[in-house]
């Protein structure tokens, strides 16, 4: 258990590092995919195989693929990863500062140490998630569906409209 978790964590960090450091965007996307998979694994470890599945299906199967397509459509094999060192350094400083700051907050928060409590079996089932999704949280569910619908329409409108404008 502990070993698998540690491995997944390491994989996640490694994928993240690849994703942010590789110059070729396509490669970076694969790094991202690695992280996403690792996180999915962590979700399973944390007791929610359903969410883990969703993560894999939507993120790895959908989003990553969409990004790859986008890269290919924009034929971006942009050689020039011409970010200046200054820019990287500045970003690194800010990010590091953020990490240190928040890390200290976490350290100072006095979180309960020790392993997770026992799983209450039926609370973590898919059935339970489905029930509360359509029960207590159905507004969230509905809102999400509307958001997705709008996103789809928006994506179509944005790409189509501008395209036509260019042609005319």
């Amino acid at each position, binding site marked *: 258990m502990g070993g698998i978790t540690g491995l997944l964590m390491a994989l996640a960090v490694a994928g993240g590092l690849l994703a942010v450091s590789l110059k070729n965007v396509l490669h970076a996307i694969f790094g991202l995919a690695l992280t996403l998979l690792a996180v999915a694994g962590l979700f399973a470890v944390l007791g929610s195989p359903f969410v883990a599945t969703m993560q894999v299906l939507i993120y790895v199967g959908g989003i990553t693929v969409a990004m790859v397509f986008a890269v290919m459509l924009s034929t971006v094999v942009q050689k020039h990863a011409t970010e200046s060192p200054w820019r990287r350094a500045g*970003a690194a400083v800010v990010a590091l500062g*953020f990490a240190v700051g*928040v890390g200290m907050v976490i350290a100072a928060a006095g979180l309960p140490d020790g392993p997770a409590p026992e799983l209450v079996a039926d609370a973590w089932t898919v059935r339970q998630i489905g029930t509360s999704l359509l029960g207590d949280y159905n507004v969230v569910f509905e809102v999400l569906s509307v958001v997705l619908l709008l996103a789809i329409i928006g994506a179509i409108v944005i790409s189509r409209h501008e395209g036509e404008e260019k042609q005319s």
Partner: protein
Amino acid sequence: MSHANLAVATLLAPLIAFAVALIGFRKKHDIAAAIAILGGFVSLVGSIWLLLDPAPTAELVTAPWFQVGGFKLEFGALLDGRTLLMGAVVGLITFCILIYSLGYMKDDPGKGRFFAFLGLFEWSMLSFAYAPNLLQGFIFWELVGLASFLLIGFWYHKPSAVAAAKKAFIMTRIGDVGMFVGLILLFGDVHTLDILEIGSIFGAPGLPEGLSAGRVELLAGLLFLGVMGKSAQFPLHTWLPDAMEGPTPVSALLHSATMVAAGVFLFARFHELFMDAHGLMTLVLAIAVFTAILSSTMAMVANDMKKILAFSSISQLGFMIMGLAAGSLFAGLFHLMTHALFKALLFMTAGAYIHHYGTNDIVAIGRAGGRKMRVTTLGLFAGGFALAGVPIFAGFWSKEVILGALHHDGYMVFLVGAYIAAFMTAYYTFRMIFLVVLPNANSDAIVEEPAGAQHGDHGHAHHGPDKAPLPMRLPIGLLSIGAVIAGLPFFGDAVAGLLGRPEEAHHAEISEMILPVAIVLAGVALAWLDFGAKRAPQRGLVAWFPPLERTLKNRWYIDAFYRRTVIRLTNAFAGLMYGAETRGFDGAGDAIAHGTMKVGVGTAKSHTGRLPIFIGTAVAILAIVSLSVALF
């Protein structure tokens, strides 16, 4: 007819005439004129009837108008000696002028409007004269001023007329402000504005309860400011000569006989109050005497007939105020009455000459043959003799009463001043008469405005037989009779009785009359030497001293002085305020706005629009906040 009905008819007829004529018949001149004359006739009959049939005690004909807080206002008429006399004078003169205007304004394009405005004036003036309380008085006092403004500026296409109208309104308003404040303070002190009550409060011997002598002086002084403005007393006198820009009937009616007398009438109306202000009365006497002399000097050199008469009006108003301030109600009002008659007459004759010859210049009128207009010239004689104070004529008697009233210990200096003014009056009056009727070949008189010049009051001459139209001759004739007989002791006694001051109508001994008569005759004689005698040079005494003549022609440079000081100061102050507004307030507002804009623009510059920098900034701030939260 009951007195109440008569009073109502007298008061309302001109208003109705005004409204109907202005709204309905502004363009239908003859109908408008007929309506105005009808209204004037009703008022004439009413006011004369009321005068001839006075009730033994003062009557009040009022209707409650409204109540504002502690202010209960009644509208109506107070019928006592003073109002009856004033009302009758107004009614009579207005009616004469209405008839006269038929001739004078015959072809004027604004004839309908003119008659309507005369209706407005008569209504205001009568309502002022009969006012039972000071507030009604003040309202109509203001409306009289408005009517005066409209009538002076009647020929509104002439910039000079417009300027004169404006000047008249502003200068009288300066006085009105004093009167307004006085009115309010008076109300605060005695809690009434009812004229009879105020009269009885101040009429009692000694000062009214709760009022210090200083307070009474202050009240009287404020009210007297109004008198000074309306009755053109120094230093607020300069508007009156300019007001001659109005049509001559207007000058005759408003600016000699009635409206300017409103100030004097106010003085008479509150005579009891003024008499309690002893200190002020001395000052008032000084002002009146000074005004009388000052304006007489200016009349001695003027060539414009209407201006001469205007100066003499100022001077005669000074005489009236002298009489009142010296304590004789009768003297002031009697002179007001006779003056109204003979001054209106003189203006009408002036108008007849102007109408005929198309010039205001007496030298030009004389050379063009002024004396050939016989009725007019007779009117000039009657009015002129009355003005100069030639014995038997109206002005002689009334001036005599004033001089008699001044004949007190302590007033000697003023008496001397009055004699000087009387002397000059005789001189300039006869100068005018001689120049008009006795032009001679040897004359050195300078024509300032040739006959028929387009600058004349009227803009053009009327050719034809040398006589004024009938509607002009009729009132001249009528008033000539008045100017001759109105001063006779019989009338004086009647007026004094009406005013309830029979003791003031003192009949001078023959011996007392010698001095005034001698002074008048001296003035006439000097005028004869200068202007009347054959081969007289007709340049006058003053012409020997050219600087003096220049000064007098420029009216002692008082107008120039005002222009340089008061007006310039006002303008400068307005300019200062304007600068403060545009540069100060607006500038400050704009500066704040621009400053904000600049800050905004500056801040906006830091928005490079670069996403990484946005995010970086946000996160950096977040990091700093987290750090500080974590550390502290």
